[in-house]
């Protein structure tokens, strides 16, 4: 500030000097200019006065012309024919009443034409009258009472000239003579506006007045004279020759006398009138005295010095104010910058607080369980999901590892305890034991949080409940295992049946060829019995593998239970009590009655074996509605209405491991030789094939309950249930001649050979092929084949496909398909017509031979008689 003041002082001193010097110079210049101006004003005044004199002359000429022209108008009127007619008629003695008054009408019209001319011609006259020699108005241009002009002495004595009336108006009075006698006078009053129009408007100002003066000094117009102020009374003394005369007149009070400049010029043609222009001398040329100039010089110099002082003062004040203003603006700018920075900081804090709040809210409400521990693994924070998973609301201060266990029974999770000492993230699956006691499987991820110095200060634990996921995974794994076992069992049973068929065919062939006394016949019978047991075994395996033949029908399940109740009682023995609790109003089910009965028998046998010392078995039925969640838990095909059949025993029960394997074929807890291990597997397969589901509830020493859920009718199973083909036993017909050609197609060589030998022994001409493609080749080599006997499942070309090829060549020839399964022929063969049959392996050859014979006979009966084959 001090430096700024000194700078201003340094700048101020020379500037003030310059201002003072400039002021003095200006004062001198002003004095010089005033002097020049004074001299110029004198010359201008002289010129102006000379010019003014010329103006007054020219305007006097215009006024004279106007007055003369107006007088001419009145002369024309007076000398008009209408006026002459009137006076002629009057001179003839006509009365006003009879004719003379009518003669005045045209005169009146002419007068009115003067006062109110047509078009835009301005009227010069205000009123026109004709006055008779007695001063009475004969005719008047106006309406109403005419003015008493006849009494105006100025008019009477005018002698036909323009006069100024007693009331100060310009008028033309023209005496009218008829036959040398004065008979009247025309009086025309000039309109004041028209007179003023003659005078130049630019000069018609209050400070510069034209006035018309008559010889008596009376002025016209009166209002102009009044406006010009104190016109000197001696104006009439000014010579009317156009010279400028200065007049002075004492002002009222003690003021200086007023000075006037006047010019007077006689109006041409009007010897009574003159035109004068009067101006105040100060208005026209100002005060031109040298003393006044000196005073003006002093005043101007003083004003300049005063202005300079004022400028210096204002300049100094302006500088101080400017400096204060600059300082104020600088401070204001600094404050504004600080305010902006503060607002930005507040905004950033608010943004961070908002983000933090959002983050905290997100963590708090996250579905994942999230917790934060200190560096020692002690919980500092746990979100709601973590608290829910742990079953505790107050976890702060507890070691996190105490909440987790690697496996059931461990109070502390060594894995998590170790993870909370690592410097790297860790991921694993642990079981957390909630306060409710139920273990929860969780996938846990721990992440160390490091300080800027690299030290671990926190651990973040994120846990996800995978209990249900794990259960479903185990369930899927179990189902896939049973499915794989079923597939394996079905495949083994199929191949085993082919072998059994070959064994049985050969054994029967041997038996047929042996005499009745042959002691080896008993051995062959033993072989056939073993084959029969093996066939039963394979049937159960097929049942487990859901490959057996079903004959579903709509059944009332309570009726099935009731019908087998007696047989069941016999099955379980007398030391076990059988109780049935049948529900009411159950929906029907669509199942194979025999298979359902088989299921009940197997479950009762299982219960009986679980209660060696007796007990009670309860068979109950009820209708249930499985919701989606429940259906998913039970692995039911779909939610909906089911009929539940339960078999509950009071046996020894099962541990979880045993419970998870009981449906596996050949798994048994019974002593060696007591069970095949296929009973519950068969039950499982039948229920599954019937679109049902089975569930077992059991615990050691708490008995076991098997619940079977069968879909209520209306939800018929779409697949896996096939009608049984006609059995070979139903085709028994008397043996007849056998001479036809039969094509046997079987990929199992032993069975193919046995069939060829047996059919040949019946008299047939037997052709063989190893598979479908070989059979097609055989067919192309022979002309006629009466019957096709083919396996279903063969490499290259299956039985059903071969049958269609065969039918193209032999449309009416019968086809017999043989299968180790149940549904393959129908599923893959399609509709082969009435002359087709399906035979399950192993078959009884006698039955097969009769079926062959019956189909051939039927085909022969339906075929048209052969005439010739060319």
């Amino acid at each position, binding site marked *: 500030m001090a430096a700024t003041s000194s700078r201003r002082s340094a700048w101020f001193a020379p500037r003030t000097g310059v201002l003072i010097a400039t002021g003095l110079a200006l004062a001198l210049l002003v004095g010089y200019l005033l002097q020049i101006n004074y001299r110029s004003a004198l010359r201008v005044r002289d010129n102006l006065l000379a010019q003014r004199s010329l103006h007054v002359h020219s305007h006097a000429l215009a006024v004279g012309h106007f007055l003369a022209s107006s007088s001419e108008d009145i002369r024309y009127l007076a000398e008009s*024919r*209408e006026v*002459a*007619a*009137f006076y*002629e*008629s009057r*001179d*003839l*003695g*006509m*009365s*006003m*009443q*009879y*004719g*003379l*008054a*009518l*003669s*005045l*009408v*045209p005169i009146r*019209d002419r007068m009115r034409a003067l006062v109110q001319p047509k078009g835009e011609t301005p009227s010069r006259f205000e009123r026109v009258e004709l006055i008779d020699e007695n001063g009475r108005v004969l005719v008047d241009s106006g309406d109403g009472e005419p003015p008493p002009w006849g009494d105006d002495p100025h008019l009477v004595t005018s002698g036909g000239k323009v006069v100024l009336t007693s009331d100060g108006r310009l008028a033309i009075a023209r005496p009218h003579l008829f036959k040398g006698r004065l008979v009247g006078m025309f009086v025309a009053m000039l309109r004041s506006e028209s007179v003023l129009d003659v005078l130049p408007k630019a000069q018609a100002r209050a400070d510069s007045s034209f006035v018309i003066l008559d010889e008596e000094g009376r002025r016209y117009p009166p209002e102009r004279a009044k406006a010009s102020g104190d016109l000197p009374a001696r104006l009439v003394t000014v010579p009317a020759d156009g010279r400028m005369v200065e007049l002075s007149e004492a002002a009222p009070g003690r003021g200086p006398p007023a000075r006037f400049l006047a010019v007077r010029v006689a109006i041409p043609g009007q010897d009574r009138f003159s035109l004068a222009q009067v101006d105040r001398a100060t208005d026209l040329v100002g005060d031109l005295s040298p003393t006044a100039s000196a005073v003006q010089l002093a005043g101007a110099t003083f004003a300049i010095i005063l202005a300079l002082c004022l400028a210096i003062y204002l300049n100094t004040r302006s500088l101080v104010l400017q400096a204060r203003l600059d300082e104020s603006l600088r401070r204001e700018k600094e404050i504004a910058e600080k305010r902006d920075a503060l607002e930005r900081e507040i905004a950033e804090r608010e943004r961070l607080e908002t983000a933090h709040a959002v983050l905290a809210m997100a963590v708090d409400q996250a579905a994942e369980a999230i917790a934060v521990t200190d560096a020692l693994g002690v919980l500092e924070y746990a979100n709601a999901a973590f608290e829910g998973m742990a079953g505790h609301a107050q976890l702060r201060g507890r070691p996190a590892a105490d909440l987790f266990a690697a496996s059931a029974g461990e109070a502390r999770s060594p894995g998590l305890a170790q993870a909370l000492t690592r410097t790297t993230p860790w991921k694993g699956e642990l079981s957390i034991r909630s306060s409710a006691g139920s273990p929860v499987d969780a996938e846990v991820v721990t992440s160390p949080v490091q300080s800027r110095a690299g030290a671990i200060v926190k651990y973040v634990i994120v846990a996800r409940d995978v209990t249900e996921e794990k259960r479903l995974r185990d369930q899927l794994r179990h189902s896939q295992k049973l499915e794989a076992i079923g597939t394996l069992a079905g495949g083994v049973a199929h191949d085993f049946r082919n072998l059994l068929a070959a064994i049985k065919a050969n054994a029967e062939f041997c038996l047929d060829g042996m005499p009745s006394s042959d002691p080896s016949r008993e051995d062959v019978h033993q072989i056939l019995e073993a084959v029969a047991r093996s066939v039963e075994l394979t049937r159960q395996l097929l049942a487990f593998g859901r490959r057996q033949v079903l004959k579903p029908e709509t059944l009332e399940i309570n009726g099935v239970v009731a019908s087998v109740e007696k047989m069941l009682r016999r099955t379980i023995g007398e030391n076990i009590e059988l109780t049935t609790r049948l529900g009411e109003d159950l929906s029907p089910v669509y199942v194979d009655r025999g298979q359902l009965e088989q299921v009940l028998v197997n479950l009762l046998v299982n219960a009986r074996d679980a209660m060696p010392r007796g007990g009670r078995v309860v068979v109950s039925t009820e209708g249930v509605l499985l919701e989606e969640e429940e259906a998913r838990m039970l692995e039911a095909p779909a939610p909906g209405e089911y009929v539940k059949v339960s078999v509950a025993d009071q046996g020894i029960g099962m541990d979880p491991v045993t419970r998870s394997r009981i449906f596996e074929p050949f798994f048994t807890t019974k002593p060696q030789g007591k069970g095949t291990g296929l009973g519950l597997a068969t039950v499982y397969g039948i229920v599954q094939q019937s679109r049902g589901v089975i569930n077992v509830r059991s615990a050691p020493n708490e008995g076991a309950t098997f619940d079977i859920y069968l879909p209520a009718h209306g939800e018929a199973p779409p697949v896996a249930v096939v009608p049984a083909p006609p059995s070979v036993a139903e085709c028994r017909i008397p043996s007849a001649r056998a001479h036809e050609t039969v094509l046997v197609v079987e990929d199992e060589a032993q069975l193919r050979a046995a069939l060829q030998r047996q059919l040949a022994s019946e008299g047939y001409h037997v052709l063989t092929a190893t598979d479908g493609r070989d059979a097609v080749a055989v067919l192309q080599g022979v002309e006629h084949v009466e019957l096709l006997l083919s396996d279903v499942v063969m490499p290259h070309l299956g039985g059903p496909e071969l049958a269609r090829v065969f039918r193209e060549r032999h449309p009416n020839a019968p086809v017999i398909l043989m299968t180790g399964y149940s549904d393959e022929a129908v599923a893959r063969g399609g509709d082969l017509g009435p002359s087709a049959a399906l035979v399950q392996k192993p078959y009884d050859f006698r039955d097969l031979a009769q079926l062959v014979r019956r189909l051939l006979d039927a085909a022969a009966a339906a075929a048209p008689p052969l005439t010739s084959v060319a």
Partner: protein
Amino acid sequence: MYMSTRAVASICAALALLLPTAAAAGGEAGGDLAAVKSRGVLRHLGIPYANFVTGSGDGFDVELMRLFAARLGVRYEFVETDWPAVLPDLTGRSVSPALADLESAQPVPIRGDVVATGLTMLKWRASVISFSSVVFPTQVWVLARAGSPVQPIKPSQSLPQDIARVKALLDAHTLLGIAKTCLDPTLYGLEKTKAKLAVRKVRLDEIAPLLIQGEAELALLDVADAMIALQKWPGKIKVIGPISERQEMGVAFRKDAPRLHEAFEAFLAEAHRDGTYRRLVQKYFPEAPVYFPDFFTSGGRS
């Protein structure tokens, strides 16, 4: 004379009441309003006379009839006639003052529907035609040449007295008039005076020149023509004084044309109300209100 006019007006009023009945009984005649509208033209019978019909295509009555035709929505047509034929041209009968009887008069062609030509409402005329309300006032004066020894009378306050004075001045002087017009000396009983009546068949505007030329010492002339003559020949003629009461002019209709008559009355009343009538008077007879101030200040109702 004044009383006679009142009587004529009474007769006309009576006829006006009776004629519509007759027209209704006998059906509308050929000259009534319906016929005019049917023909689409209003035929105006007129005689060049003063400023009523100037002969130059205009005039007070010409302009009045043009406006009337426009009011009716028909075309205007001027049919020029003369004083002897004007009523026969309207009535279709050769009526005259001597034979003012429609039944007895000889039929002649009808040439017009209406007469408007400064027609004075004389008694005999009112017996054969229907006059409208008074359209214009008039009076008949006696004029003399400027050099005539007969001097204008000094008006008294009594019109009959002034008329008597005028009549007294006529002795032994030739008086010019026009028969069958308002200037017919017999209309004013001048045949009973010692004046030498010189009745000529001339136009009205020929009276003043004939007077100046010395055809007669005196002449009858109506006010309108006298006004024009005084302007044309100032100092040549002079007005001696009145010979008639104030007369009235009207528009003439056939007696069997009451609807047309009514339509004109309505039109005339409207013209008075809207200023049309005053405008026409100022245009063609500006001096008339000076001489007949009572008529024009009363709205044309004398």
